[in-house]
């Protein structure tokens, strides 16, 4: 108890740490959730209309009307269009060749050319898909109007997006950002906390006291475990307040899961600290592992698109399970039974990391 009190005393004395603990999550949630969006809007489109027919105008009109595209640019030749893409003035160039309307009306296959800047492949694919859809719909309308017989009722698809009906990207991001937050606090801060005792030499002094291995580790774990949970509460409150992020599942469940996950993270942090002699080393080791774990976890990209080895690797990535847990509880209202496999995974993670760090933290040579 005395040890824990000392830890808190040190944390609250630290003039940089304390504001950091509360400012960072707020800033992260306010900025990242909004900024790290992958929704596509206002892609710059350049149109090179060599046909200048009612059909081509109709296509151009459809594009201008879309919120995804900003179709202010015009070129008079394909060369000009390509140059514009190269200069980065436009993201997509649509080149309509002369004779488009003629081909269409005479039932010949007609073609337009679409050039997409694919530096960002995801955006390029989306642009391509939306563009194709827009053009086809416009062309389809024209053909329908001109065709004599009434169109047959074809298959009509109606789409509804479950769990995030408005496809609000923030609902997807917020649980992810919260996960990063907890993960970073849990590992980095706890590792630093122990390594600092090594760097200042105080660990030697503590080792010559009757304080046991277990008590020492526990005292180092507990404060950041609590801080992690406070941060989670803060994050959830901010999400509710600013983004109206839903909370379909039980809050108790989220906190229970987080408590388990945090235990594992703190164990991991301590494990790192048993190897590192200086804070610099600890930072680097942590950075390396966290970067891999976080980027592979499916926070920004879907893990379903990963190669098989990536998926296999993810089975030992605790961040992957936890992000899943967070999203499922918050957006889907998953219950404990639904999340049993993930819960088992983070339990194994917690047990492994804590026991490894305890074993590795040698009080005696």
């Amino acid at each position, binding site marked *: 108890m005395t040890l824990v009190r*000392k830890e808190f005393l040190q944390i609250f004395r630290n003039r940089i740490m304390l504001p950091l603990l509360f400012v960072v999550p707020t800033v992260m949630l306010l900025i990242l959730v909004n900024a790290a969006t992958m929704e596509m809007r206002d892609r710059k489109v350049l149109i090179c209309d060599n046909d200048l027919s009612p059909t081509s105008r109709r296509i151009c009109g459809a594009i201008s009307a879309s919120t995804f595209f900003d179709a202010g640019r015009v070129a008079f030749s394909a060369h000009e269009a390509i140059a514009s893409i190269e200069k980065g003035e436009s993201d997509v160039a649509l080149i309509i060749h002369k004779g488009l309307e003629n081909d269409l009306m005479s039932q010949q296959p007609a073609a337009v050319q679409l050039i997409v800047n694919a530096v960002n492949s995801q955006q390029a694919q989306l642009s391509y898909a939306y563009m194709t859809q827009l053009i086809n719909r416009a062309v389809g309308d024209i053909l329908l109007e001109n065709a004599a017989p009434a169109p047959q009722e074809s298959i009509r698809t109606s789409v509804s997006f479950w769990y995030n009906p408005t496809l609000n990207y923030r609902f997807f991001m917020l649980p992810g950002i919260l996960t990063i937050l907890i993960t970073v606090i849990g590992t980095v801060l706890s590792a630093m906390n122990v390594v600092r005792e090594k760097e200042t*030499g105080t660990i*030697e002094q*503590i080792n*010559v006291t009757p304080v046991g291995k277990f008590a020492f580790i526990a005292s180092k774990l507990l404060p950041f475990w609590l801080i992690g949970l406070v941060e989670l509460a803060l994050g959830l409150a901010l999400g509710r307040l600013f983004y109206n992020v839903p909370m379909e599942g039980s809050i108790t469940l989220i906190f229970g899961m987080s408590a388990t996950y945090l235990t594992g993270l703190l164990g991991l942090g301590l494990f790192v600290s048993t190897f590192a002699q200086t804070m610099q080393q600890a930072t680097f080791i942590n950075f390396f592992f966290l970067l891999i774990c976080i980027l592979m976890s499916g926070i920004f990209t879907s893990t379903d698109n990963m190669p098989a080895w990536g998926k296999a690797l993810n089975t030992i990535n605790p961040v992957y399970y936890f992000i899943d847990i967070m999203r499922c509880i918050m957006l889907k209202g998953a219950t404990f039974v639904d999340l049993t496999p993930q819960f088992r995974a983070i339990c194994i993670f917690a047990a492994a990391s804590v026991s490894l760090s305890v074993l590795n933290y040698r009080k005696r040579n």
Partner: protein
Amino acid sequence: MIKVRNICKSFGAVRALNDVSFEVRENELFGLIGPDGAGKSTLFHILISLMKPDSGDVALWGLDSVRDYRAIRKIIGYMPGKFSLYEDLTVEENLQFFASVFGVRVEENYRLIEDVYRHIAPFGKRPAGKLSGGMKQKLALSCALIHKPRLLVLDEPTTGVDAVSRKEFWDNLKTVRQAGVTAIVATPYMDEAALCDRIAFINNGHIFSVDTPQNIVKRTTQRIFAVRAANMRTLPALCRSLPGVMAAYSFGDAVHLAMNRHDAEAGEIRQQLICLACEKVEVKTVAPIIEDCFIITVKNQK
């Protein structure tokens, strides 16, 4: 009562401690004198149960440093060479913390540390990191004593501390000893050796001459001469070439010459040096002090 028996410890190819044995008596102020890298800290780490020896054993009042490490950690106070208190905690908080780690209240043993602590008590609310070097030492000593240990282990407590603070620190140690605490102090300063009840020389992992400082000086059979000349820089080398010289080494503003021959005379040495083209030669007999004894002892072993 501390018994160190045949301790050996190697780090890779380096033999840090080589068959080290000595005893420390109850309520003694015992000095471990030796230069940096002699093996003092390693020996201390083994003494206080932070390290296991390769062979040999340490018994503190019958407790084995390896087997009974838990019991040992309750009865020792350790002050490492590097300041190792929490710099972000205040003076009072540090003291409070170390007291509670040992399960005692500050008031219980305050009398023991009173002499030391009252100098820093006015700065009780100041973070330990903002104290001066001397005050840090006093705080560290207070923290090491607050649980009234039977054995106090001090690793180079006065390194990097000014002369006045050093003196005060040694006065404090005397008080602590009077309170019944046994203390072992490692120091590279020869002048501090004279302040101990008994001392041991340590060099290259070997222990020599365990005795009182007075006896060690008394036992020295060599005659010591202080030599000065115009060419101070080349003087030690020239002195070593004289017959019967055991060691010649710079000592303050002179060169000390330890002669094996008991009949060596100052005048004779002076003549010999003048023959070696030395100018303004002055030679006089001096009484050996601890530093001379240390150099002679180390030289003898080689």
